[in-house]
């Protein structure tokens, strides 16, 4: 893509999120969200093959619906309450509507069906942006809304974790797997949103690091299906070594950093006496873990019968070191080794 165009689009993307983050009025928040949506659409439809176009279209429809509902509910609330402050919403109906709109934007169950299709349709880099950057703005808005009806968040959160687990089990396309994994992680965040904003933020941060590391690794291996993952050991042996750890961190296993958010969320839920929620969430995490294990098994733990020439892969485009790929070590380090630093990390957020 033309570098000027790229700069404009990426700047608008950042601008959109920044606008949302710094707003107190619903109109500005909606504005930021729309800017972000519009900015990413050309990025998604970069390659003009039908799949990318379809993904861009679907994304636009989803985000537009959500933004429209958001605006409608915000203005109704302003009419009833007299002000448009994000942090002082009190009308329960419109609070729920806004929450639902934001959850549609995030791609949580039961409105999740667009996520796998969109992320599958776009390239890995854009998928990374959709999965990570685009989640920040709606999340911040969700944080600021008080008095959300608690069962709403709990049911949707648990449903997301379960659907994220079950959906990913039947997939071979890696981007769809990562889409379901993001649904599951956002479900975890949603569970704790009402009770501890610090933990929710921390969970989102760790999720962003882990997902970035995964997407960059996949980009490096040029792998989009599980079968293509199996030849990683010829292309980048170091990645073959580290990839299982990264995937298991996504799955939430100690002593990797992905364990910390799950651990604290479960602890918080238990302390608040939400035992069934904690149990279901913990059990459903096993479902996601099974497909992460499947991936790590294909990368590292199995070797298909091959002959000597296969050990040297034909590399047509030698991967040029892009800015994104230089972020891989940082992302990996944060994915794997952050667990001992959790107390200090939490104090940063609180």
């Amino acid at each position, binding site marked *: 893509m033309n570098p000027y165009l790229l700069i404009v689009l990426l700047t608008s993307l950042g601008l959109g999120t920044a606008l949302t983050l710094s707003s107190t009025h619903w109109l500005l928040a909606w504005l930021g969200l729309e800017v972000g949506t519009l900015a990413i659409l050309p990025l998604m439809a970069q390659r003009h093959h039908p799949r990318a176009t379809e993904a861009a279209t*679907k994304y636009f429809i*989803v985000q537009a619906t959500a933004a429209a*509902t958001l605006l409608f509910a915000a203005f109704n609330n302003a009419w009833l309450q007299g002000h448009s402050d994000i942090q002082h919403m009190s009308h329960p*109906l419109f609070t729920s509507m806004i929450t*639902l709109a934001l959850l549609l934007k995030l791609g949580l169950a039961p409105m999740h069906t667009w996520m796998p299709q969109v992320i599958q349709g776009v390239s890995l880099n854009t998928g990374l942006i959709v999965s990570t950057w685009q989640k920040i703005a709606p999340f911040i808005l969700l944080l600021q809304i008080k008095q959300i009806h608690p069962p709403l968040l709990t049911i949707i959160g648990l449903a997301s974790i379960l659907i994220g687990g079950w*959906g990913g089990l*039947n997939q071979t396309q890696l981007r769809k797997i990562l889409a379901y994994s993001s649904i599951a992680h956002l479900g975890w965040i949603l569970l704790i949103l009402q009770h501890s904003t610090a933990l929710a933020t921390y969970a989102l941060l760790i999720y962003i690091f882990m997902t970035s590391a995964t997407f960059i690794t996949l980009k490096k291996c040029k792998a989009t299906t599980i079968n293509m993952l199996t030849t990683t050991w010829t292309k980048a042996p170091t990645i073959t070594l580290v990839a299982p750890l990264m995937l298991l961190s996504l799955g939430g296993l100690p002593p990797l950093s992905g364990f910390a958010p799950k651990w604290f969320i479960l602890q918080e839920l238990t302390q608040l006496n939400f035992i069934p929620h904690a149990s279901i969430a913990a059990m459903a995490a096993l479902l996601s873990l099974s497909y992460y294990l499947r991936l790590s098994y294909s990368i590292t733990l199995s070797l298909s019968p091959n002959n000597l020439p296969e050990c040297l892969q034909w590399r047509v485009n030698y991967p040029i070191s892009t800015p994104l790929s230089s972020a891989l070590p940082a992302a990996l380090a944060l994915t794997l080794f952050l667990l001992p630093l959790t107390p200090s990390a939490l104090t940063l957020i609180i």
Partner: protein
Amino acid sequence: MPSLHIILTTSFIITLVILISPVFTSILYKSLNPIWHTHHIKTAVKMAFFTSLLPLFLHVHTGTELTITNLHWMNIMTFDINTSIKLDHLSITFVPIALYVTWAILEFASWYMKSDPNINQFFKFLLIFLIAMVTLVTANNMFQLFIGWEGVGIMSFLLIGWWWARADANTAALQAVLYNRVGDVGLIFALGWMATNLNSWEMQQMFITAKSLDMNAPVIGLILAATGKSAQFGLHPWLPSAMEGPTPVSALLHSSTMVVAGIFLLVRLMPLMQDNPFALTTCLILGALTTLFTTICALTQNDIKKIIAFSTSSQLGLMMVTIGLNQPYLAFLHICTHAFFKAMLFLCSRVIIHALKNEQDIRKMGGLHYLIPTTTSCLTIGSLALMGTPFLAGFFSKDAIIEALNNSYLNAWALALTLLATSLTAAYSLRMIFFVYMNFPRFPALSPINENIKSITNPLKRLAWGTILAGLLMTCAVLPPKPPMLSMPPYIKLTALVITILGLTIALELALFTNKQRPYMPKQYFYFSTMLGYYPTIMHRFFPYTFLKLSQTIASMTIDQTSLEKTGPKTITSLNLSLATTTSNIQKGMNKTFLSLFFTTLMIIILLNYY
């Protein structure tokens, strides 16, 4: 005599040391001397026998009995277990007899097993068996008795399976161990009961404290133990199968010493049982049933060793009947006299089998009377003693038992069975004698018939002297503790003799039928006897099959398949599989899916909000 007890103690300890020393010397230096066995073990047993005669004479002369307690072995709180040796009439009399019989058998075995490369090990096994038997007999507490009990059981297993490459021998050894184990359950139960209720395993304390308690439970355990070890009906099939072992094993273990261990246990613990009419009746009926059943089985056996095995079993039943009559002294007397003639019968049978090149079927023997006169004479003496011919060894015990049986007010059915068994004893003994060495030879012409070897004739002669004199010596030496009935009508007095002669003549008459042609008699009449009463056929198949099937049902089907597979992991797998398929099938790439879901959820929230 002032220091009587010291002499008794010391001589008995010396006997034990002489017996145990070859075991230790064999551990200490491995000698490749091929005749080590003869020099060490047989000599040791001989010396031990002569040494043990000293306690015997002292006891007979003065009536001394003593108990040696030397080692406080262990204690569990207030429960002490010592090693103590009780030298009373029973053990002082039994040990020399056992040593005498073992000496004869070892001398015989040194000829018989001469070509076996592991002969030293064989003799060592026999010696260890003997030590275990002596431990059992001289035990003053139940723990030591149990050690001896288990010891003889294990040695029996090792010795029956001596020729372990033969599948039948292994099966027989296993059978012996299993049946003995079932009896051991009774013994262990009795041990436990005594430990908890009588607070001691020392016999003296047990006899005193048991006077006031209801002793039904432990004596049933003891009777079960005796049933297992002494092959009473119900746990009897191992004894005929144990004939797979070498003949010295059969002669020593399964005729004289090991199988009488069960009866000996009951004799030793008689004070516990003598006030318990239930136990006495059980012994009586069990013994009568055993003796008749095994005698019927012995009538149609064609293997000479099996005939003698069944005869042993039937004599054991007779001993059990005696215990049921509350006459332990007579039972013990029969144990001692039976040892002599039964061992001799086994040794004679082995000489005959060897002479005919390992032919064990009596239908293929005959006419041996002129060819191996010593052996056949000893066979005759032994059989006559078995039948209870007046003034041979068997007479003093057997006739006394039958007299006591006739004069008691106990079960008439047991009496009838025992008398019938006595006459049938005469019948099968005559059958054996008739087929083995009367009439004309039925074996092939070139048979290595030779009995001119000292190692054969000397033991046989010694045992024959024992058979003739032992009963007399024992009855003259010691007064019976219970006064026998001395006055009875002549027909009662002569019952045993008349019955025996009746059985003998009928059997002789039937045997002479073989010289004449007679109408064909269908074989069904014999099936019960030849199939050993169908007992092994039913029991050896039915119970193992039932238990194995039950265990398979429980372990494999209930636990494994149901709990661990179907209700657990497999259900979860199928459930999750269907849910995963459903979830991924929602993705059809249609916009209306998420839009409609969003709309529906919105409506639900709105509606819920207003309620």
